[in-house]
């Protein structure tokens, strides 16, 4: 099965010297980085100023340092954590998606398609139903467990667990497992009458109720996951050449897959436990970024992190404009954005299983 999407990695003569060179244009990378940086800064300023009450940006410096009046307090305690969390969650999910597509050698692999997010949500909601006071670190660990269990089950159901699963079977198995887990989650929510406020949050995903505590809970795992992923860029590039080639170049393919999967679980589990299952980020961001900067993971992973953050941040901003004061969860916006891209990817499938 071909794994190439967008620009295919080109093994050149250098490959023989265990350093496969992947053609990427430095200029495009520079432009993409610049655009993303501008989008992050603009999104931050836009995101903190709008909401049920518009707040002038002149309050921003005050909010960062002392928070004297009510405007500055709103900025500091409500708007800023929300924007920061959107960036963090997007980065985590997008990088997880890129890792997953590399590890599974499958263009339709993504945390939300493979049931990983739904698994994390189910276990967290189950735990909260049993122990209502649960929050913070234990929730995240449980979320890891749910994500891992769901991901592994779907991989096994779709075929052998060795990365040779057809995209279609993976998608069908994953989406069905997701809908099953979401149904079970809904059953739990029906039983737990106190949870109706956060129903949409757990079913759709969003950063509506974000606080600094959420950011603090997510941050260590995010840093760990991102650094781990960036460190794996070279092995992942080798993996993209195909298992045989990667082995021939001295790569421990199984270990790379295992490490990559663990990082996916860490990133998704942590993101989902604080923000719910924000749809399609892990699927669409890596595909868009690959189009723009090529498929070298050295540049792809950092740009995916920035791109995912930007996407969730702007989805959240759009969600606030829909009908204030009622807010559409960001997950709805990303699902509406992601569906056409999924259709595009599905149309490209030549498989006829």
């Amino acid at each position: 099965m071909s794994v190439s999407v967008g620009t295919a990695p080109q093994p050149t003569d250098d490959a023989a010297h265990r350093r496969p060179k992947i053609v990427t244009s430095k200029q495009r990378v520079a432009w993409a980085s610049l655009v993303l940086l501008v989008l992050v800064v603009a999104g931050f300023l836009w995101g903190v100023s709008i909401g049920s009450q518009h707040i002038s940006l002149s309050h921003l410096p005050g909010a960062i340092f002392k928070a004297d009046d009510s405007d500055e307090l709103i900025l500091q305690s409500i708007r800023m954590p929300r924007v920061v969390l959107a960036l963090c969650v997007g980065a985590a999910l997008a990088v997880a998606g890129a890792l997953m597509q590399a590890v599974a050698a499958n263009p339709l692999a993504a945390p939300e398609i493979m049931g990983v997010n739904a698994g994390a949500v189910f276990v967290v909601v189950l735990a909260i139903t049993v122990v209502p006071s649960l929050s913070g670190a234990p929730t995240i660990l449980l979320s890891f467990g749910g994500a891992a269990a769901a991901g592994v089950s779907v991989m096994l159901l779709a075929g052998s667990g060795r990365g040779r699963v057809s995209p279609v079977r993976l998608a069908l198995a994953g989406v069905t497992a997701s809908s099953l887990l979401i149904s079970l989650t809904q059953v739990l929510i029906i039983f737990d009458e106190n949870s109706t406020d956060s129903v949409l949050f757990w079913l759709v995903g969003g950063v509506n109720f974000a606080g600094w505590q959420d950011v603090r809970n997510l941050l260590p795992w995010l840093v760990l996951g991102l650094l781990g992923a960036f460190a794996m860029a070279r092995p992942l590039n080798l993996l993209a050449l195909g298992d045989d080639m990667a082995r021939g170049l001295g790569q421990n393919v199984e270990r790379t897959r295992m490490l990559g999967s663990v990082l996916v679980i860490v990133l998704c589990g942590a993101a989902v436990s604080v923000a719910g299952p924000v749809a399609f980020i892990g699927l669409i961001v890596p595909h868009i970024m690959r189009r723009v900067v090529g498929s070298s993971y050295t540049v792809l992973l950092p740009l995916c992190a920035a791109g995912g953050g930007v996407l969730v941040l702007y989805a959240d901003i759009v969600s606030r404009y829909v009908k204030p004061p009622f807010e559409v969860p960001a997950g709805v916006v990303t699902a509406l954005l992601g569906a056409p891209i999924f259709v595009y990817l599905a149309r490209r499938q030549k498989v006829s299983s």
Partner: protein
Amino acid sequence: MTSTSIVAQHVRRTSLAKRHPAVLMGSLGALAVLLSIYSLKVGATQVSFGNVLHALVGDKSDQAAAIVFDFQLPRVLLCWLIGTALAVSGAVMQGVIRNPLAAPDIVGVTKGAGFGGMLLLLAIPGVPVVAVVPAAFTGGLAAAALVYLLAYRRGATPVRIALVGIAVSAAFEAGIRFLLVRKPLDVSAALIWLTGSLFGRSMSAVLETLPWVLVLVPLIVVWARKLDVLGLGDDLAAGLGEPVEKTRRLLLLFAVALAAAAVAVAGTIGFVGLIAPHMARRVFGGKHLASIPAAALFGVLLMLFADMIGRGLAPPLEIPAGLVTAVVGGPYFLYLLVKTGK
């Protein structure tokens, strides 16, 4: 790999069903009737069997009879109508698309109809349920057409239909949630409608669904042979004098209409249209004249079972029947997927 090989594996085991389909079909029907009568007494308010029988036989004066007639009976009747509609719709789609994975859920009808219904309900508050059915119908049809068009690229392969269906369903699902938040009624009540429930449905809901089932299902049964002919492949079917494309589109239209009518009344009940036809084919073989009525009976049994579990597991809490069918149907679908892949 198609369903025929699954069927083939079971020929020996099911030879009785093949030789005497009427006997087994009759037993299934009897089972459904018995389950219906039993389910009349399940629910938040327990009614004794004596009272149920009493009410059925004629005495409609006391409170128990009121519960049976106003709350329980409409639900049981709806289980029959909706189970039949979804299962027959799925059987036709699987026959026409010639793919065991085709079903109203997969081609987007369920979510599209849910979206259409919600849109009208929110646009015109207090609109009578009569008007919701055409709205849901339009939504379901639009979604199915969209899936077909988007999947079409030098022909629409079943696999692309399935994948595009997933995406279109996700978009309509997002649309439904968007509508929910724009008009935040009672969120949990709306969610229960969306997951598919027969809670609080009255006789008028029965009358909404009845004409669709009464008209379309017999029509489809009469056309069962056309489905068999289509199953031979386009060339052979055309050779036998069947206007293939026309028949296919008409049958698909009927299937979409049935599914949309069911969703309009009961919300998005998943997986019944997928698994009931499978069970029917496994037991009764691939001939549609037998497998379609059988699918309807399996659909009815599934709905009765799901609604009963929903009512009886933790009264007075209601678990929507759609959640039960998803919890049962999801694993079955995965099992099919594993099986067809070998």
